[in-house]
């Protein structure tokens, strides 16, 4: 797939803009002066060696960390002080590097927590099953089922998450994030620790999420093969700095990227 064959997402407006973000922990600089745009509808991959600042950057986007400098603009509004909770309200959902699921709850309940922000009835109504509560509950379950089906989780719907295999848990986490009907989905190493088949399946689900649910995706991934196939746009970080930003075909041959990954000849 080359960039000429598909409609380029670069033409659509930027959904997410990072402008000169710098983040440090004490004296340690995690991110230095990083700017890039993520356009509506694209799959953007953040790559780079370990410790390059990828996860930190994701944490800045959804408000876990507050950068010392720079601004994050999401959907046209700029924010300096955003909490993870605000981020969720504004349509940013995410998954975590070390799976942060509710382990003692069923798959369905996990997915339903993703619907938390879409509840249209009050506690009082829910407690006594009056007013909007019943219709609301049915609506949430219906949407949860759509997501569960899309990610092929029907068979484990009622299983307790802690008992499922790692690969399936990763999928449940994606399901929970999608259930929130996000506009932007942040995936922190969605394929880490998977074998080739599982990776291919996961890549398929991410593409589905992007196309079927229309979410813009920012993901971190180490498997360069997967990244090249999957993404429309790649941002390469090294030592907290951006060293490349563009379509896969260009990034693949970028000398700075090759140097960061393979080392330079001295």
């Amino acid at each position, binding site marked *: 797939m080359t960039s000429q064959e598909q409609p380029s997402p670069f033409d659509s407006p930027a959904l997410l803009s990072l402008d000169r973000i710098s983040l440090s922990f004490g004296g340690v600089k995690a991110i230095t002066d990083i700017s890039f745009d993520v356009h509506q509808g694209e799959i953007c991959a953040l790559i780079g060696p370990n410790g390059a600042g990828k996860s930190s950057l994701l944490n800045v986007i*959804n408000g876990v960390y507050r950068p010392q400098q720079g601004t994050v603009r999401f959907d046209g509004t700029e924010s300096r002080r955003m*909490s*993870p*909770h605000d981020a*969720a*309200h504004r349509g940013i*959902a*995410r998954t*975590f590097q070390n799976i*942060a*699921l*509710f*382990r*003692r*709850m069923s798959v369905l*309940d996990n997915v*339903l*927590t*993703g619907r*938390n*922000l879409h*509840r249209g009835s009050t*506690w009082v109504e*829910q*407690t*006594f*099953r009056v007013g909007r*509560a019943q219709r609301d509950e049915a609506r949430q379950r219906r949407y949860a089922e759509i997501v569960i089906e899309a990610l092929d989780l029907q068979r484990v719907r009622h299983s*307790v998450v*802690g*008992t*499922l*295999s790692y690969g399936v848990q990763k999928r449940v986490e994606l399901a*929970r*994030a999608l259930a*929130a009907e996000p506009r932007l989905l942040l995936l922190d190493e969605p394929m880490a620790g998977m074998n080739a088949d599982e990776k291919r399946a996961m890549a398929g689900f991410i593409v589905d999420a992007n196309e079927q649910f229309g979410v813009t995706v920012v993901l971190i991934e180490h498997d360069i093969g997967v990244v090249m196939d999957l993404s429309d746009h790649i941002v390469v970080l090294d030592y907290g700095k951006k060293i490349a930003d563009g379509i896969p075909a260009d990034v693949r041959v970028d000398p700075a990227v090759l140097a960061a990954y393979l080392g330079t000849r001295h």
Partner: protein
Amino acid sequence: MSFFLEVLVGGLLAGVMYSLVAIGFVLIYKASGVFNFAQGSLVLFGALTFVSLVERHVAPWLAFAATLAVLVLIAIAIERAVLRPLVNRTPIVLFMATLGLSFILEGAAQLFWGAQVHGLDLGIDDKPLQLGGVMISQFDLFAAATAGVLVIALSLLTNRTRLGLSLRAVADDPLAALAVGIRLPRIWAIVWSLAGFVSLVAGLLWGARLGVQFSLSLVVLKALPVLIIGGFSSIGGAIAGGLLVGASEKLAEVYLGSLVGGGIENWFPYVLAILFLLVRPAGLFGEPAVERV
């Protein structure tokens, strides 16, 4: 036979009183996975505030509302000053924080209301009722009915609402709960307020029994075997555990006590709890740990 029934019913009703205290623990345990050591202090604080207001000629319903308001404020303050800075720390850290909290609450109660013993009259006769040849304390019946209403209300709230789902989510993984848009501070404040409410009810009933005094905060010690037997994470378990503890300690006292010279009522529940720990560590209704290794 009727003597046996009388002991049994008396024990069960006493057990309800233990359950009332245990429910407060369960609420907080469910929402944060923490054994809240300060629960007994909340019981004391609530009862002492209520009784002191009533002694100052505040109408009882107003005193109840005012005490509840104070407990809600305390819940919000606890969330701000204790839970928020300790987010995502291990349960033992939070447990230690609640230990400190219990001293602060007891100290504050003493500071505001003094250390003397207060009598509390809820206006319920403690005359025994004759029911089918069995003597039953009216007060115990009232306490049991109160507990019943409380349990039904709480279980509707936690099983049917998104609050219940959020509670479990927060207990399981606070960070993930934040990421799906659950308002942690609000959930915690609500849970501690609910626990405050339950402890106020327990404090009033226990206070009417024992007098409102500092030993009231020690009723938590009786709640401990109840929780171990019933399971820390189940309101139904707290009820079942309470009934079991109440009934067994009374029956053991009456039928086994004479064999060892009596006085076994006080320690029998702990023996029972130890047996449960050996055989069924999660308790009757607790969630056993599920882990894929």
